[in-house]
């Protein structure tokens, strides 16, 4: 790639919006073509998933994954829907995700605010480093005692999984929020306090709304992580009837057996919500990841 072909794309990830004039923009055709070919690596597996899901069982077992469905049928979806009891799995996955999203945003934002505003107090400073330590403790290391404890506490259910999602994302989220909060000038807050507002009011009326973009990022990543996770629910939730959608795919793997069309319809229904949310919110997905990396 030659230096003349470089530019800084104006996107949500670029903080400096600098663009060379359109006249000097020369499109790099070979690179474009190469990248388009590379997208096949992403699109082909998705294409196979979609086309298999619309096939009849007869066509699905013929071994050709890449053929178009003929005839096109929705049968596999209705069968997968009833076989895996999709509505129940969906409701449980939504339940876990909603609590994880709301919990991750609120718990970390509150902690980050308290820490940033009281950085001169040892307790708050130490709490920050204590929470950060979680980044170095992966789930498998504490999984066995955790399974026992959640069982004893009656949390071997979707609620317990949602809480664990909040806990394991706490370090990263608190770090994001504290970095963002340090950039908010104290004067804003003081004029509000001058008018007699207390900490509670200042947080909810001023700080929390200001944290909006960061909360969006944290929330989207919380959703994607909790919706897609297999490891935690498979180990923590003891009742198979209460399992989340990814775990259901594993549970029904043997029952799908050679009805590949039903299996793929089920996979497609499992992955669709996260893909849709991503496509609707990509702005925050992109900016969030880079903020997390740079700060």
């Amino acid at each position, binding site marked *: 790639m030659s230096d003349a072909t470089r530019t800084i794309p104006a996107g949500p990830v670029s903080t400096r919006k600098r663009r060379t004039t359109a006249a000097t923009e020369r499109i790099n055709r070979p690179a474009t073509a190469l990248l388009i070919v590379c997208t096949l690596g992403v699109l082909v597996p998705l294409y196979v998933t979609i086309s298999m899901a619309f096939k009849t069982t007869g066509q699905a077992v013929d071994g050709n994954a890449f053929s178009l469905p003929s005839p096109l049928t929705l049968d596999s979806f209705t069968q997968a829907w009833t076989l895996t009891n999709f509505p129940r799995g969906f409701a449980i996955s939504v339940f876990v995700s909603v609590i994880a999203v709301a919990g991750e945003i609120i718990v970390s934002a509150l*902690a980050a605010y308290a820490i940033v505003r009281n950085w001169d107090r040892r307790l708050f400073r130490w709490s920050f480093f204590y929470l950060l330590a979680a980044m170095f403790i*992966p789930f498998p290391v504490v999984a*066995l*005692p955790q399974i026992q404890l959640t069982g004893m506490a009656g949390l071997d259910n979707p609620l317990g999984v949602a809480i664990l999602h909040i806990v394991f994302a706490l370090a990263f989220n608190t770090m994001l929020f504290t970095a963002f909060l340090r950039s908010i000038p104290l004067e804003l807050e003081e004029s509000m306090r001058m008018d007699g507002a207390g900490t509670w009011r200042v947080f909810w009326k001023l700080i929390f709304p200001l944290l909006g973009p960061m909360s969006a990022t944290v929330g989207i990543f919380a959703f994607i992580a909790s919706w897609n996770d297999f490891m935690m629910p498979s180990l923590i939730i003891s009742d198979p009837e209460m399992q989340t959608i990814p775990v259901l795919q594993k549970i029904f793997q043997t029952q799908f057996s050679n009805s590949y069309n039903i299996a793929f319809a089920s996979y497609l229904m499992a992955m669709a919500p996260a893909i849709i949310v991503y496509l609707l919110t990509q702005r925050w997905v992109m900016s969030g990841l880079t903020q997390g990396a740079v700060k």
Partner: protein
Amino acid sequence: MSSMTKPSPPAVAVQPAAQPVRARKSRTDPLYYFFLLPSLVIFTLAVTLPAVLGFIYSFTNSVGFGDAEFIGFRNFIAVFRDEGILSAYGFTLSFALVTVIVVNAVAFLLALGLTSRVRFRTALRTVFVIPMVISGIVIAFVFQYLFSNSLPLAGQALGIGPLSTSILANPDLAWLAIVFVTAWQSIPSAMLIYIAGLLTVPAEVYEASSLDGASPWHNLRHITLPLVAGYAVINTVLGFKNYLNAYDIIVGLTDGGPGVSTRSVAMAIFRGFEGGDYAYQMANAVIFFLISIVIALIQLRFTRGKGGIAA
């Protein structure tokens, strides 16, 4: 710290930049403790307590319930002699190393492409990020079908021996499938981080350099690579952390097989509830934790020498 003094006159409160918060209040609003409380409580109950319990258990002969007695370091010694566990470490470490290299190489090239003057830049980026939002086990099931049905057909048609049967059933090749799917899913986040890194290089630097007659290769080698070195470290540290805990994708592709050739450390630990291996696998978890920390520290050490950006 100045906040220790009595309520100070406003003039003193004006302090140079970094922490503008300092020295304003001599007393902390009790509500701040209340704000901090939920995170400290759930973190302590859900991570610290299990970590401490697990550490204690690792020195006992507990089977997960009932009575147990302390047996010193016997579990740890046994772990080091357990061929199954040693092979899980061998597999996990080499898998993580290969995946980190593959992911960084591909992600960097894609990022270079996406920050150059290509058409459809936004649309291309949108597509390349999709794998990041798909459930690991679900996409692993999709690839499991492709690896065990479609790939052998292609292998037979092209007459490539090792590919003519399912690579998932081949103890020597199954790990490649796991590297492939893990990389497929991990490349997007690494790519976005590289894009962020590449965008920090001001265009003027390249302009000045090319005015001096530098070749594109020279620019890549002497400007781009040194400047994104810090981002490479971020990707390596985050990558290693994820790959060492590999679980979902392996369950979907091989479930540790054939035999135990692709059993990861996480899978070995989770077997702690089978066959009374509880305390034994906790010892394994403690060792695993120490190894993860050592690897992270080595990586961070390495960064400092390279003068990368602060992660």
